[in-house]
């Protein structure tokens, strides 16, 4: 009887703990994720990354906080103009990406992020890096498709690749537009797994389409 009581008590305690934690985790994350995804491109995400980093360090088993830290720094690397600083910001993004990858395998969102991170490295010095990082982008896109071909962020990224590749190299805006339109179709069907999972990209797709016309 006594042991049963202890067991029930222990169960209650853990349940209470996880209940106590989950709402706080979800609530804090929800607010942050929504802020991250609605911040205009060009506004530094670093303060939000700091908050996310704290959550990531407290919630050691969750991949999503790590995902969002990496995402924030990826975005900030595009704002930075100094090549060396860009690389340092991306080093930090990679550090958190690796943590996320260790916690969640076969994850299309992580593959998409990996492709985006490789793209971030590529644009630092395109002449020297397209060969190495271009291949990494392509490999990660391939992996993402295998896991979930319906992820709209895959088509967005493919469209971006075409958009910035000159026509002489097989790219160009008309070809890019096809991908962006495909992305929009997928966004229409897409529902994120939760409010703290990635759902970004539709606005930027709309912007690209406006630039393709």
């Amino acid at each position: 009887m006594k042991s049963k009581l202890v067991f029930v008590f222990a169960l209650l305690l853990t349940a209470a703990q996880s209940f106590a934690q989950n709402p706080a985790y979800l609530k804090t994350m929800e607010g942050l994720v929504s802020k991250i995804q609605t911040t205009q491109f060009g506004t530094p995400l670093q303060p939000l990354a700091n908050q996310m980093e704290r959550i990531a360090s407290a919630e050691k088993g969750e991949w999503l906080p790590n995902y969002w830290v990496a995402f924030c720094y990826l975005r900030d690397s595009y704002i930075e103009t100094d090549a060396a600083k860009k690389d340092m910001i991306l080093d930090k993004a990679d550090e958190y990406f690796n943590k996320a990858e260790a916690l969640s395998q076969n994850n299309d969102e992580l593959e998409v992020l990996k492709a985006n991170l490789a793209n971030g490295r590529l644009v630092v010095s395109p002449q020297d890096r397209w060969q190495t990082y271009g291949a990494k982008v392509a490999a990660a896109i391939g992996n993402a498709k295998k896991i979930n071909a319906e992820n709209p962020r895959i088509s967005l990224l493919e469209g971006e690749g075409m958009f910035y590749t000159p026509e002489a190299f097989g790219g160009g805006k008309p070809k890019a537009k096809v991908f962006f339109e495909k992305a929009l179709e997928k966004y229409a069907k897409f529902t994120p797994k939760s409010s703290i999972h990635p759902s970004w990209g539709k606005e930027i797709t709309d912007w690209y389409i406006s630039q393709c016309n």
Partner: protein
Amino acid sequence: MKQLLLIILLVTAGFSVALGQANIKGKITDRKGEVLPGANIQIEGTYDGASADEKGEFAFTTDSKGEVVFKITMIGYNPSVKKATLGTGDVRLDFVLEESINALNAVVITAGTFEASDEKKMVMLKPMDIVTTAGGAADIASVMQFLPGANRVGETEGLFVRGGSANETKTVIDGMIVQNPFFSSTPDVPQRGRFTPFMFKGTAFSTGGYSAQYGQALSSVLLLQTQDKISEESNLNLNANLAGLSASYTHKGWINGSLSYTNLSPFLSLLKTNIDFDKVPEAFGASVTINENPTKNSSFKLYGTYTDNQSALRLNSYDEFNSKYLFSMNNRNIFTNASYQVNFDEGKWIFQSGMSYSKNNDRIRMDQTNADRHDERTQGRAVLTRLFGAGKNNSIVFGSEFHAIRVGNIYGGYDVSLKDNYSAVFTESEFYVSPKLAARVGLRGEYTSVIDEFNVAPRLSLAYKVGKYAQFSLAAGRFYQTPDKNYLYLNRNLDYEIADHVILNYQLIKNDRTFRVEAFNKNYRNLITEKTDFFDPNPYRFPTGKTDNSGEGYAKGFDVFFRDKKSVKNADLWVTYSFLDTERKFQNYPSRVTPSFASKHNFSVVSKYFLEKLNTSVGLTYSLTSGRRIYDYGSDLKTYELTKPYENLSFATSYFRAIKNHFVVFYLAVDNVLGRKNVFGYRYSPDGKQRTAVIPPAYRTFFFGVSWSIGKLDRIPKEATLNFD
């Protein structure tokens, strides 16, 4: 009563919560007291924390009590962890972060090195630069001749660096010495390198003071790093030009096979050549490359190539003037290189190992004389690197290598050969004293069985950053080289040749503009000299005189380099000037003089421009080299003539087009556009009364071709095309 109790309980509980919340305030600065806005502080295991504001200050509240751990992070700084005991009430805590050693603030050792790698921060030259340089003929060594420190020598292959002869430069692929980096030499016809620039992800050209990881080169090492596995794609590349055809197929990114057929007939038929070919150079080549990453932390590479080439030319006879003799050659060469690398313990340890085998046979007939040569080299190398310090910026390396070398030469009545077992051990540490001051200290020990001698060579490099963009670097060291095989055939009682280097370098890199100036002093000792009855300037003679280590000499000078990618959009400009003052007593020189391969002034301008709308790149290269000394047959070397200065203007252009998954490049190169009649020296008749000029194979050359790739193109950003050839 119960209700009252409950209320009291609730109130005290609430009160205790309020009491238990601690307000934490403080400031985060670096060591110099500069505030660090944006730094992140948190109590580990909780969400509690804050970002530092514009004044570096932070404030937050926490429910945590007792012993807690504060963690402070910021990009560009080492993370800091600090324990503290929290009670109730306000707490003030200030933190000091230490700057990490990173690409932004760290100094880099640059003295004596000219990096062409795309990995390092201090990038100066990239692999693509090699193929887009006009006048460089997409040949690695030819392009290196436009860099500071190299001396232009037009009649033979090889890199002549800062007063050193061509055999003082070693070519190293993934740590392995390449026995025959160039196609076999024919008299006064410079040969191309055997390796295409596309094989390598990076090229580092050392002009002296190089690392203890390499040896057996008195002047310089050319370090080539092969490509890593970069994709899983398959593609086919076909090439056709005036000198032959080639095809290369890569299967799923891991295995590549190439075939090539070279025949200079179409090229020569368009030119007025200065060479009288009996058999136009013809070659067949095949190679296999394997590139696989067995695990995430390891990589395996294998490269094997076989080439067979033949040519025959009629050369002016040195015996009887105005008569000619037939020089014919059939060269067969095998080169294989395998390497394995693995990282463990989170990349703190790196183990690299490699094996290489090469075999080269030259069947040479000079008139009726048999002058066959053969060589064989088997080598193994293992290097263990330990990285340490925050950010793994410091390293210590332990390594060893072993070479078994077999060489032989027949020349008329001589049939000579030798075996040499060479082994070396080395250790080297590269570390930061501060982000501004870095040092590299190394020691190399070698043993060569053929002369039965040991040596120990110390190496040292320092670098100090003097501003945000500028730095000084110093390199010094001792370099040993086993005497050339041509001397060892007849005399094994020789000792190592020695060179001591001191190099001082200043570099300023800002906004895609690089300015670099380097001064050097090199002292040669123990150079091999040969006693002959009279001086014979023929560089191709076989040394049969008495030899010893009594030679010596010096080389000093400076070079200036400027590169600008900024001023004109889509353009790249390099300007190089090298000054050299050198004298040496070596080979069959009876006294210490400036050697005939050395030129005092070397100047070059390399320019490239990309015409965006036309998908075309154009390049123009100009080079000027002051006259070299000509020593007559039988000369006492006190009197000499100078060749007229060497001058060359070359042009290259390429046009490219992608259609679906096909990618086509057309290229055209014109060397010596102005048709200047350069002379490199003279060859003498035995009585010394008559001579013939050594001139380039052709005064003006045209070369064109097309490269066609089929396969998935990885995304190529717009900017990548700027330097694309």
